[in-house]
């Protein structure tokens, strides 16, 4: 199956989202209150790229962190079989109090990851607001969650899976739909 998004289009999409972020947070002081938090694993490099894209546009340094939501997953203790998922570090090296948090993930699907991420974030403080950025929205929500910025809406069936690959982790940039 051919890639739905290639490197050029991913890059262009992220630049567009960076512009949208600046537009929507244009109120005085708005940009100063922004902070990016990427959800591990692939939300983190996307958050870093957005920080760079914003820096390229207006020179602002947006603080960027990484969130591991494993410990907040609602399916963690449901399976009696198999080892526990590996936990990686959460690194949010700034206070999120009164910040406008831009939460970043690669694929929005059931919404359960985002639910877990919201719980995790709230344990770090009380942000002024949380906005959600996803590279791909593939539908099939199981919770009332909606993204504020979407790279690409990708209608999929439940039997398919969406594979996001990023240079930093996978050695190349592409988004692919796979039949499973």
């Amino acid at each position, binding site marked *: 199956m051919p890639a739905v998004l290639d490197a050029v289009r991913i890059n262009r999409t992220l630049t567009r989202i960076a512009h949208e972020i600046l537009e929507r947070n244009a109120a005085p002081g708005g940009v100063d209150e922004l902070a990016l938090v990427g959800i591990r694993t692939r939300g983190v490099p996307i958050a870093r790229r957005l920080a760079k894209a914003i820096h390229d546009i207006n020179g602002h340094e947006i603080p960027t962190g990484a969130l*591991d939501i494993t*410990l*907040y997953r609602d399916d*963690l*203790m449901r*399976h*009696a*079989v*198999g*080892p*526990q998922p*590996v*936990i*990686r*570090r*959460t*690194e949010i090296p700034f206070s999120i109090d009164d910040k406008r948090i831009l939460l970043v993930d690669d694929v929005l699907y059931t919404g359960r990851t985002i639910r877990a991420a919201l*719980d*995790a974030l709230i*344990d*770090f*403080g009380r942000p002024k607001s949380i906005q959600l950025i996803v590279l791909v929205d593939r539908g099939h929500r199981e919770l009332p969650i909606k993204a504020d910025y979407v790279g690409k809406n990708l209608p999929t069936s439940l039997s398919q899976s969406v594979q996001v690959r990023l240079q930093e982790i996978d050695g190349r940039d592409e988004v692919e739909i796979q039949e499973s």
Partner: protein
Amino acid sequence: MKKDLLGIGDLTRDEIYLILDTAEAMREIGQRPIKKVPTLRGKTVVNLFYEPSTRTRTSFEIAEKRLSADTLNIAVATSSVLKGETLADTAMNIEAMAPDVIVLRHASSGACHLLSRICRSRVINAGDGMHEHPTQALLDAFTIREHKKRIEGLKVTIVGDLLHSRVLRSNALLLTRLGADVCVCGPSTLVPIGIERFGVRVSTSVDEAVDEADVVMMLRIQQERMQGAFFPSLREYFNTFGMTTARVARAKPDVIIMHPGPMNRGVEISSEVADGPYSVILEQVANGVAVRMAVLYLLAGGVEGD
């Protein structure tokens, strides 16, 4: 991971590294304003302590609470054990109330293995007699790795009451499994027979043992377990085997000094060394919480082939 954590002897090298890496992530939770994650919500952990303990019990309890488990502590001094109940009966009665994890400390070696056979709950060994104290060895390894960035190839010297020490046994197993060069030293009356089988070197001269060491680990003189005279006096023990500034100077310049606690100041370690710049003793205590969180998290999940 297996169902229980009974000893380092049951862990593979990969499992040890998995625990240490998970502890790395757990430590960050202790630095947050809200030091709690919902991971073990609804799980019940029983801390069953047949021997006195401050550090280990507190550390387990904090670890359980940070993971949102419901915890209860059974101190033997206020329990039916005093009325003559056996360990197996106590365990089966606790088991009847369906806890998920039992953390056991007991004066008899092998007590955790007994519990493991009769309980469906997961069992964590918090020290059984003179056998093992796996979470202590894991937190020691975590502390060493933090300072030295590796364990393989380090010279680790362990000095003190080797005979009665479960900390020694767990550490010897773990450190040799990860490729450290372990040298143990103590009065010959306190060197257990066959200790070489752990893959460690035995030295009777503390000066020689400490020479060029990367890590020096002191063990407590366990007078409560001693029936008989193993050395003439505590003062003589200190003179011959105690860790002093002069002895520390023989080790590498970046040596770290460890002690599992509780310390006998002026017996196995001088106050200058215990409170000195090379001492990481309180870091060991801090790291204990993260390591125990990791163990609880990894055990609470599924078991392969369950």
